[in-house]
């Protein structure tokens, strides 16, 4: 009973605080929108969200990619020994309906991934959306029991997990060597560099999703 009263009290206080914040926040001002629009031409892309994500605030995105990798590594490290696969993620070996469906869907998912990656420069889309589609496809493929043999899978998994962060860091360091600040892309090459980073991040996001979903499976033989 005390617990319920406490929660109700806390919810009420939070409601008041959040409501007050909504009132106090300067909703009528334009925020950072004019600044982004003014300098959009220098970003290398025409979609303002992608410009913020991969150019104006790309340091945030770099660290986010690092967070993703850390989470995947943490999940993998939970299973130092081979354990029994829990029944809810058991492999559907020989499930022909799922297997056939996955074979039809996988090429389409790859095309959608490529489209989302490319369109991110002009319209809503980008590496995280594309990575989510590819990752979902990878989870379906895993559930259908279609997997690389273990000797090939473990290195492939590890390489794909670090690709995004490695390419992102390489671009950051290269920009510094070329004379700019960390992650300050030279304007003529900004488009290509953003696409390069996004393509690498797609791979890592997709692999991270697969590892987060099936951490134990990936350590199985």
């Amino acid at each position: 009973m005390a617990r319920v009263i406490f929660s109700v009290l806390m919810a009420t206080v939070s409601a008041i605080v959040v409501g007050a914040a909504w009132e106090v926040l300067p909703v009528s001002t334009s925020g950072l929108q004019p600044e982004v629009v003014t300098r959009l031409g220098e970003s290398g892309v025409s979609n303002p969200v992608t410009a913020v994500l991969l150019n104006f605030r790309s340091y945030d995105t770099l660290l986010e990619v690092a967070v993703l990798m850390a989470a995947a590594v943490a999940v993998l490290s939970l299973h130092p020994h081979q354990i029994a696969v829990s029944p809810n993620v058991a492999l559907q070996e020989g499930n022909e309906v799922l297997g056939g469906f996955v074979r039809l869907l996988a090429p389409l998912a790859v095309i959608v991934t490529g489209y989302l990656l490319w369109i991110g420069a002009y319209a809503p889309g980008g590496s995280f959306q594309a990575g989510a589609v590819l990752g979902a496809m990878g989870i379906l493929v895993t559930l259908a029991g279609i997997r690389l043999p273990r000797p090939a899978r473990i290195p492939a998994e590890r390489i794909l997990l670090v690709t995004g962060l490695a390419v992102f860091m390489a671009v950051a360091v290269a920009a510094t060597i070329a004379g700019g600040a960390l992650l300050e892309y030279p304007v003529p090459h900004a488009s290509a560099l953003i696409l390069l980073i996004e393509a690498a991040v797609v791979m890592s996001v997709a692999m991270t999703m697969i590892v987060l979903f099936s951490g134990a499976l990936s350590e199985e033989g």
Partner: protein
Amino acid sequence: MTAAIYYGLAGIVLFLTGLYTVITAPHMIRKILALNIMGSGVFLFFIATAFRGIDISPDPVPHALVLTGLVVSISATALGLWLTVESQRTGQHDARR
């Protein structure tokens, strides 16, 4: 403007629903799901504050930050679920407490 207020209010309701469950739910997995719902409420509220008017494009900075937050949120949820499964499996901890 009204549309943004509805979205903002929906975000607040989601956040508080999640907060209530985080505090009262006895089971670990329900707490983790509730934390995820709290996060969704924050995202919805934040997106609503990016609204600048029907004919004006929204502020892209909150959109980019929410996109960042979504990915961190899914990683945190997945890691929390795995830790719960693992602690249950090794018998060191009762997930219902």
